[in-house]
């Protein structure tokens, strides 16, 4: 668990003055530019999924890596964000930007409310209650008529017109998602280097000791939970807008929650680069498995095995292993 350390030299520099700030900028630039050059739609679709995974994993990491709370139902933010966005666009005729922001804030507010309740629980009890919330919200969506019940909502293709038609809209959605991914990385980075982040890391290490030291633990945890809901909700809005269709079983699929946990563990919980790297690698691996004849149906078996191997052999994940080999890497990849 040595991934938490920040080198003393790095602590003194400002956020913008450090290499990691520019590494994030570079990643965003590469994501934006790579498919644009040569108009490569296939690459765009693959990177779009990677951006979604990075967004989910980075935000999950705020709870899992920083606070040490396993959120098994993080997908509820994504699904609920999707539903609110799609509903506001389709039924209420809101513009895309307004619908996305409304989804982000609504889901964050809801998370704050849920968080103040379930964050009294710890360990396995907390993890179970997050699954419970996801199931409850799914049941709500299945029975809520304005959201189409279990049949879901189909978006009219006319909604792509304001963005210049479907083809152009897909590019715009992609760039927006890359932006959300970038914001997720910068959010993780800013939190980790703040007083708030220090409090969260202390909670992750020993919550009782943190409280005695003066960290307002109930409040900090609830804020962290709420913040970690905001960008995944917007990503969900963009994702389901792109699909032009949303139904409860897709929006609240626990598989994606589990995958996000595997990604964070694979990359190295608590580090910022780890979940991003893990998300990218996992997306590539998943793509390869899905297209290979042997493994097409075993994608989750591989994810499970991977998780087992990480927990057993490198609990610090990819970043933990890299830091162990090259300690200087800490100064560059945080």
């Amino acid at each position: 668990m040595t991934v938490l350390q920040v080198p003393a030299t790095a602590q003194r520099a400002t956020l913008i003055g450090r290499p990691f700030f520019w590494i994030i900028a570079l990643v965003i630039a590469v994501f934006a530019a790579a498919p644009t050059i040569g108009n490569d739609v296939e690459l765009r679709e693959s990177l779009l999924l990677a951006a979604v995974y990075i967004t989910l994993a980075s935000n999950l990491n705020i709870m899992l890596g920083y606070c040490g709370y396993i959120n098994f139902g993080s997908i509820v933010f994504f699904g609920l964000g999707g539903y609110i966005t799609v509903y506001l666009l389709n039924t209420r005729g809101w513009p895309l930007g307004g619908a996305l922001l409304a989804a982000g804030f609504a889901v964050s507010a809801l998370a704050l409310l849920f968080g103040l309740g379930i964050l009294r629980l710890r360990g396995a009890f907390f993890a179970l209650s997050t699954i419970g919330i996801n199931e409850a919200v799914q049941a709500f969506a299945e029975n809520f008529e304005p959201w189409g019940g279990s049949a879901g909502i189909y978006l009219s293709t006319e909604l792509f017109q304001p963005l210049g038609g479907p083809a152009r809209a897909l590019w715009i959605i992609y760039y927006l998602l890359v932006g959300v991914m970038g914001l997720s990385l910068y959010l993780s980075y800013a939190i980790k280097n703040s007083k708030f982040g220090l409090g969260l890391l202390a909670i992750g290490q020993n919550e009782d000791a943190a409280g005695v030291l003066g960290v307002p633990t109930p409040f900090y945890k609830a804020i962290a939970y709420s913040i970690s809901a905001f960008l995944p909700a917007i990503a969900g809005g963009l994702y389901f807008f792109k699909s032009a269709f949303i139904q409860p079983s897709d929006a609240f699929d626990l598989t994606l929650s589990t995958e996000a946990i595997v990604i964070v563990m694979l990359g190295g919980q608590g580090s910022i680069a780890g979940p991003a790297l893990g998300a990218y690698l996992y997306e590539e691996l998943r793509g390869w498995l899905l297209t290979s004849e042997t493994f097409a149906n075993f994608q989750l078996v591989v994810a499970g095995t991977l998780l087992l191997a990480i927990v057993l052999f490198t609990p610090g994940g990819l970043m933990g292993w890299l830091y162990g080999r090259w300690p200087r890497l800490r100064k560059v990849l945080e």
Partner: protein
Amino acid sequence: MTALLVVENLTKRFGGLLAVDKLSFDIETHEILGLIGPNGAGKSTVFNLVNGVFAADEGRVVFDGHDVTGMPPYRIAHLGLARTHQIVQPLTAMTVLENCTVGACFGRENLSISRAREAAREAAELVDLADRLSVTAAQLTIAGKKRLELARALSARPTLLLLDEVLAGLNPTEVEHMIGVMRRIRERGVTILIIEHLMQAIMSLSDRIVVLNSGRKLAEGKPAEVANNPAVVEAYLGDPALAAELHGH
């Protein structure tokens, strides 16, 4: 002098066990008050009641003019009360500096992270951990972890410091060192409530001593008075005859 901490009729039950029974005492500003008693007398429970880890069943605690009864530990910490734990509670994967920075950031002065780092360095220096700032807490020896507990509590720049057996498990050299550290802390104007089993240490450090037995206050007074109190000797030795005999000598 005014009382910095007032404990009134404090009572705590764990099921059928009366751990602390109508306990009252005061601590004056700048005083060192020793809290002693046989194992299981309820000393650590008193600490946990004073800093809000446990909720009292009866009675109240007033710290620096604020009624802190029922407040969560983090709010009491903000008011300027810091403590160490008998069983060390390091933030293991974080460095010594980071551990102390947490204490400073969320302590009485509510410092920014950069100011907190300065306070953390000062505190680490005071307990002679300055050369171990970038070592993770997990890598420290037990004596090191005890010192870290103290440094972390000091980083908060408290007005009242609760020390729970900071000398236990240390060798004689380390004990001597730690006593020196405590004297330095006191010179800085920090009021101290200390639990300790090492009699020599607590007798020489404390201005006053409160003796607990089975959750009740058995005696209170200057170290010499308490040491010569037959009831205290009996509580420790469990034999009134032996106590009388000791006093005869």
